[in-house]
């Protein structure tokens, strides 16, 4: 993805609101006017740990409007637990906005959004922008179980068709989000997806099969989040790394690759440029 012009900085925010959207999922509203004004869909922040001694946590910017941005926290370890425990009034510093977001223009007028788990957090601003641009949007959203599906109705409120899937079938289709039948039949001009890497690989295969360009927002363990440590790489087609082309010129196996930084060259990549 081409580098967007953003100037990140450390924002001293305070928690304005806190909502437990599901068991183990907390949405924190932050007073952060400069960040709210600067952010583009698909960008993220590094949330600095309150007491130090841990590396900052990469978090998508879930919502942004007026002075407020929000973060969606899925508690999986110490850092997400500490952040999810913050209460209204607590102070939190976040560095951002960081990374290159989605390329809105390249998605066309009929868009499939695919979200797996916490990946949903990266797609709300995109869905908002798509609605503003007049595109028709469908959200395919999968999670562990019904409880773990967060805020699907907020996407519906944006005018998106919403189709759900759960691992245990407790809501929507039983199975993976990429198994939803209409994904193999319905016509789309573009796909944007965010979720665990196994899901994104399935999305890449689907996109390749259907010859639709897909933008994938990747997850990886980050340390710096700003391109300094080279800890967050993904193999990228060497040719694409210089001059992205679609469809790929040479068969998958022969292509040389480079290690690109997800935090800096991404987190959003064209599926066909990845050499997983």
């Amino acid at each position, binding site marked *: 993805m081409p580098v967007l012009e953003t*100037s990140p900085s*450390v924002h001293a925010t305070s928690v304005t609101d806190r909502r437990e959207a599901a068991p183990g999922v907390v949405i924190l509203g932050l007073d952060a006017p400069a960040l709210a004004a600067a952010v583009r869909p698909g960008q993220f922040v590094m949330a600095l740990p309150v007491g130090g001694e841990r*590396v900052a946590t990469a978090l998508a910017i879930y919502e942004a409007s007026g002075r407020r941005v929000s973060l969606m926290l899925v508690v999986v370890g110490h850092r997400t637990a500490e952040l999810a425990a913050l209460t209204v009034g607590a102070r939190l510093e976040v560095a951002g906005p960081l990374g290159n977001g989605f390329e809105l223009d390249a998605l066309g007028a009929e868009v499939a959004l695919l979200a797996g788990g916490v990946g949903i957090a990266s797609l709300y601003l995109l869905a908002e922008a798509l609605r503003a641009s007049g595109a028709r949007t469908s959200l395919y959203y999968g999670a562990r179980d019904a409880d773990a599906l967060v805020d699907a109705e907020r996407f519906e409120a944006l005018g998106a068709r919403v189709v759900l899937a759960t691992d245990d079938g407790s809501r929507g289709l039983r199975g993976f989000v990429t198994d939803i039948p209409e994904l193999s039949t319905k016509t789309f001009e573009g796909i944007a997806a965010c979720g665990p890497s196994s899901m994104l690989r399935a999305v890449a295969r689907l996109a390749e099969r259907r010859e639709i360009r897909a933008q994938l927002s990747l997850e990886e363990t980050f340390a*710096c989040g700003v391109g300094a440590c*080279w800890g967050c790489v993904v193999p990228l087609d060497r040719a694409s790394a210089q001059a992205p082309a679609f469809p790929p010129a040479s068969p998958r196996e022969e292509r040389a690759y480079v290690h690109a930084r997800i935090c800096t060259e991404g987190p959003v990549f064209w599926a066909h440029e990845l050499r997983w």
Partner: protein
Amino acid sequence: MVRLAPSEPDLSIRIGTLRLAFPTLGASGCYGSGAEYAPFVDLAHIGGVVLKSVTREPRLGNGTPRLVPTPSGLLNAIGLQNPGIDAYLRNDVAKFAARPCAVIGSVAGFSVDDYAYVTDRLAARDEIDAIELNISCPNVGSEGETFACDPRLAGAATRAARAATRKPLIVKLSPNVTDIASIAREVEGAGADALAVVNTVRGMSIDVDRLEPRLGNESGGLSGPAIRPIAVLAVWEVARAVAIPIIGQGGIETARDALEFILAGASAVCIGTGNFTDPRAPVRVADGIREYLIARKWVSLDDAVGRANPGARLRPVAP
């Protein structure tokens, strides 16, 4: 030793012929080329940046995951990803001229000749103010032993690099040894101008769900506050063994952390993982050191270096 304080204590230091305006540097492999942190800190307010290590040949680096957070620490196994010295000199080095702070090149290798060759080529460039030798790479010629863990090999690598440049030469020691002082003495004898103490501690984390190590490379290097006590002791012991300046590092996040190293005998500090906790760390640390000196009415870092270490050899650092 306590003198009357002028309005501002002097934070600048000297390492051989290298002058640093501040005693705080970005650590190798953690600070990119400095530009990555420019949105967060004014690079004119840090002492310098130690660049990511470069090798003779290009290296793709390790597979992922390359990072695993651990309690108060971070495991990394980047695998020295770099374009190789040729492409580096061609594409990257020219950009470093713009840095308003010192730029220290980091050289890694797998043989004595590698160290000589890469040092020679990199040090020849005007953009590079000094060379740091990263001798903590497994030496393929010697059963995976790292240069930094064997006094003889450490000395040989140092001598080779010394012969290749007259620019200030910093040699970075590993904590994965029983007696770091003996390595330090050998490296000093081989002509190093300063020592970086210490690199990461070897470690591993296992994913008990997937039944395999979390790092793509299986094992990696532990950094961050977890290793700070290990690093402070290493500086303490090295300061008693050699007279050349020490650049302390390992888990520094705050000025008080940095002062532990300085009082043990370090003249400057590198901040690596601390940037991942707060990208403003190096400037915050320098500010805190200044306040500390003011509160004690000390006029320069000379008043602090080694002050808590009665056995430390004297190493004047103020320019």
